[in-house]
């Protein structure tokens, strides 16, 4: 719980920073999720009822209560990406990673998700891996991106 304490300290145990605290913790989890024990700990430390904390966690799309892959790959499916060929990108990723949206690869390296617009429509079709955005994707450039994450692992 040391990590959790550090984050709580950083935000001075302020209730209004709950979302900011949860975002940082999710990053620190290494698996893009919020472990139940951490959330319980935060609720106690902030003197908030668990249901309030869970309410917030489940309301916002970026939080997950289940472990995800080390790298979260989000394929944008909103209008601008849709008309620029996002479906092709999604199918390629499904094939390349051998998983469907919502699933995680066996090696725990990638989770594939479909997301809404993240403001990269000028380079659609776009994907996001963690904090990084990749656009103007072609089959070749997409494969190269995935390969670079595999090599880094």
């Amino acid at each position, binding site marked *: 719980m040391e990590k959790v304490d550090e984050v709580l300290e950083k935000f001075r145990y302020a209730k209004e920073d709950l979302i900011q605290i*949860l975002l940082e913790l999710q990053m620190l989890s290494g698996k893009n999720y919020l472990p139940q024990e951490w959330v319980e700990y935060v609720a106690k430390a902030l003197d908030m009822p668990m249901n309030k904390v869970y309410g917030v966690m489940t309301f*916002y799309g970026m939080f997950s209560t289940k472990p995800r892959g080390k790298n979260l790959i989000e394929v944008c*499916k909103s*209008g601008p990406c849709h008309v620029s060929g996002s479906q092709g990108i999604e199918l390629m990723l499904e094939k390349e990673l051998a998983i469907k949206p919502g699933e995680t690869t066996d090696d725990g390296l990638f989770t594939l998700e479909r997301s809404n617009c993240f*403001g990269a429509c000028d380079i659609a079709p776009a994907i996001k891996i963690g904090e990084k955005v990749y656009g103007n994707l072609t089959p070749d450039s997409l494969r190269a991106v995935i390969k670079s994450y595999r090599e880094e692992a």
Partner: protein
Amino acid sequence: MGNTKILSSRFGKIKPDSVEEFVAAGGYEGLKKAITMKPEEIIQEIKNAYLFGRGGAAYPTGVKWEQAYAIPLEKGPKYMICNADEGEPGTFKDRHIMAEDPLMLIEGMTIGAFIFGAKEGYIYCRGEYSGIQKILKSAIKNATEAGYLGENIMGTGLNFNIKVVSGAGAYVCGENTALVESIEGKTGRPRRKPPYIKNAGLNMMPTVLNNVETYACIPWIVKEGGETFLSVGTEFSGGTKLMCLSGNVVQRGVYEVPFGTTLRELIYGLGGGIAGGKTLKFVHLGGSSGACFPEELLDTKICYNDLRKNGLSLGSGAVLVVDDTHCVVDYLKTVMEFFEDESCGKCTPCREGNRRMVEILEKLTSGRGAKEDLERLQRLARTMRNTSFCGLGQSAPVPVTTLLKHFAAEFEAHVQGRCPSGKCSMSGVRR
């Protein structure tokens, strides 16, 4: 077409978080002038500028600030909030401002703080823009070190700090009251209005909230004068607009155009026309909650009045170009899935309406649609527009009604089991 650059003049030319480079390129001249003026005078300049809110609702900023200024400070200082949620699909202009010239936005907020005597400001920036949040934080830190934020700003006695708060993936948090709830650390569901946030916003205190691009216009207006700003645009829409061009167009990107430019000039002139030698099918203007319309309306000027006369609205300034290889029913399903995902679930017309619309569109795209489905879509659209609790549910049906209006034959074809563009499976089974 004039080429006055009000917002993008420093884009790509300065290190975004460098106060020195910002000042050397004309930054903070608006604030320097503002502190020599009376608050009423600054507000009058903004009124003269005919600046309309760039976040989508197009409320006149001068009027908003005049009303906010009139609210007494008896409960304590007002908050300044910047809406940097930018969740509307097809919109990426605020991202450009924050990534390339964030101090322009910070300067605009500081001028506001000077008018209202605000002590605390917040930039609510969407969680997906985590990289941009870092640039903002660095720019704020540098501005504080240089004395443009913090204690006794430029010897005026003004103390003003700005905090960056991250969203966490909820489009509805772009709505004023939901945004304020989210800054308070709560679920971002819209509040009942009144009270309006100008009276009781963040922590139930008087709050001034504007979009990134709106704040970014303020320093120039103060520096050059409201009438100069107005003269750049049209009679009733002052200044320039950052337009976001996306979809099947040759040169996608953000373009700063003076009001009065036509959509055709933007798409075929600046944007280089439709990509791949194809032809235009329709334009989706203002984001997913905006209207879809065919080529005939392209000579409409980008101007709040002209657009309104044609039943359109500028929204966030998103211009999505869709070529004729695409199917309107398939496209609409994608759009309505967005609203189904993003409905906060607080009220029934929006929570259920979007879901039912997606179901109907799913039927139509798989060849299981019936004639009555088109009437059902119209009926749901009416109910949602009239009875939804917030702007999300009220405007979600706009693409439905506008596509039904302009492409009735294509919807009919789907009812008959045919997708003219061959995009829909029409397999008769659920996908």
